[in-house]
């Protein structure tokens, strides 16, 4: 049996380590009074909740904004819905930048964002994405119904691009082709990026995702454009000021930056469509932008 005196030294060291780490962390924490102070002072920090789909472009844009204005934009990345939950529960944040319009609609309905501040940052076009080199020779939507093919889409209940995929399937495939497609549908991915990595990691032969996936990982992903008549609508990535913001002016300034020429150049560099016209050129036709599509009951599981 170890005598109590013998335990004293290790216990003391453990306690000292804990307290020391706490002090270290507290000292290193950024000045949180920046945005909470409020008043007329320009905050040196904005808190943004963003969908991870636009991470590389967003990170570059926020860096540029900081260089221009001195305001650091701290971004919480994650699934658009998950970060919305985080923002709601934390009751703090200046900007909401989801990966798609339907989450912005949710946020507006719940009063989490100031609806009038909403702006569109970039446009997204759905496309079939396959492994680089297209080993299974997939050229059309109908090819996805070929027996033995492995296909995935994002979860249509929680991820925008999944909902777009379902709409494309429903509007373009005959009932028997739809059944064949669903037989090939191996699973749902849980986010936009996972839909892209499903191809990068060769989990499936094809996904219905955004054409921009091929720009995220050009070495592993190839986008097969859909014919114009098969695309019911194009998507967009919106941004808005959060209703919890304590510096709405500076937050608006970030929105202006990201929708201005400098910000747009960054997004264009990463393959996003900066204007609807660019998206329409890619598609070959003018299309409705955003809007609502209700998931058909046979795709919903209660």
């Amino acid at each position, binding site marked *: 049996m170890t005598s109590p005196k013998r335990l004293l030294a290790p216990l003391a060291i453990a306690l000292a380590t804990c307290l020391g780490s706490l002090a270290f962390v507290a000292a290193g924490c950024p000045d949180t009074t920046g945005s909470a102070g409020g008043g007329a002072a320009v905050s040196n920090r904005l808190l943004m909740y963003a969908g991870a789909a636009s991470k590389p472009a967003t990170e570059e844009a926020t860096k540029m904004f900081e260089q221009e204005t001195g305001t650091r934009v701290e971004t919480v990345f994650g699934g658009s819905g998950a970060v919305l939950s985080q923002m709601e*529960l934390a009751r703090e944040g200046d900007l909401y930048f989801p990966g798609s319009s339907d989450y912005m609609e949710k946020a507006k309905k719940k009063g989490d964002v100031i609806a009038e501040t909403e702006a569109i940052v970039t446009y997204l076009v759905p496309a079939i994405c396959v492994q680089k080199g297209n080993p299974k020779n997939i050229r059309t939507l109908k090819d996805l119904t070929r027996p033995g093919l492995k296909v995935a889409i994002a979860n249509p209940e*929680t991820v925008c691009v999944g909902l777009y995929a379902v709409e494309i399937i429903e509007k373009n495939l005959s009932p028997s082709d739809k059944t064949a497609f669903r037989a090939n549908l*191996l*699973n749902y*991915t849980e986010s936009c990026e*996972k839909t892209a990595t499903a191809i990068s*990691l060769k*989990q499936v032969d094809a996904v219905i995702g955004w054409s921009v996936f091929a720009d995220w990982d050009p070495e592993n992903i190839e986008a097969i454009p859909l014919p114009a008549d098969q695309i019911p609508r194009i998507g967009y990535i919106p941004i808005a000021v959060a209703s919890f913001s304590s510096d709405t002016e500076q937050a608006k300034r970030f929105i202006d930056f990201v929708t201005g020429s400098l910000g747009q150049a960054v997004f264009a560099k990463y393959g996003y469509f900066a204007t609807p016209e660019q998206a329409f050129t890619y598609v070959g036709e003018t299309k409705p932008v955003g809007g609502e599509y209700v998931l058909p009951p046979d795709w919903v*599981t209660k």
Partner: protein
Amino acid sequence: MRFRRVTIACALAVLAVYGLLIVSLFYFLDLSAVWQALSSKRVLFSVQLSLVAATAATAIALALAIPAAYALSRHDFRGREVVDAILEFPVIVSPAALGAIILIFFSNPLGAWIQDHTIQFVFAFAGIVLAQFIAVLGIAVRFLKSAFDQVPPRYEMVARTLGASPLRAFLTISLPLARRGLLASGVLTWAKALGEFGATIMVAGTMAMRTETLPIAIYMRLANADIKGTVALIIVLLAIGLSALYVGKLLFRERHA
């Protein structure tokens, strides 16, 4: 006496930490959401899937871990230190990284061959069991080794001198003497498998009525910004998990009364 009180206070503090978090869930509790969850075919499927997968993964893990832990505890062999060191691998890399590693394995020629010639793991039920198995195997061996370390080797040696084969000595001496530790290890392994999320969601996907386990369903609700639904499912998982563990402990206690 003071030391006794302090230690009891610490034990109660542990209860307070977890208890407070659980109680705070009730701030977002919506009974209709809970009722809807309990009567939903989808949630019942998730419950069933979680219980079956966790039990299967635990069984397979224990089948490998018990003899492995025994070897680590009793025998000196080449590579023993390496085996011991690698047990913490899943914990260190984190569940999400573990999932990524499993996916990377299956996208390699060997992994692709395995999937083509045996069964589909990625995005399928077998993937859930595999992900959970890989996540819990290391800690199962670690805990089981501790359990066997508690049993003095002397008893086995005596059995051997009396004519028992090594296997007989293991089955009739070592296992029964280590049963408390074995039970605790089994329970912990099962609980960890049940709650496994990061590796599972990466490998098996999120399709309802196919690979949506209860932890994945909770995440999906949160990802839908449905906080009341999330809380409802957390309560369901807590209730099922804790009562299953309690019943399991009761059963084992009675059998060895």
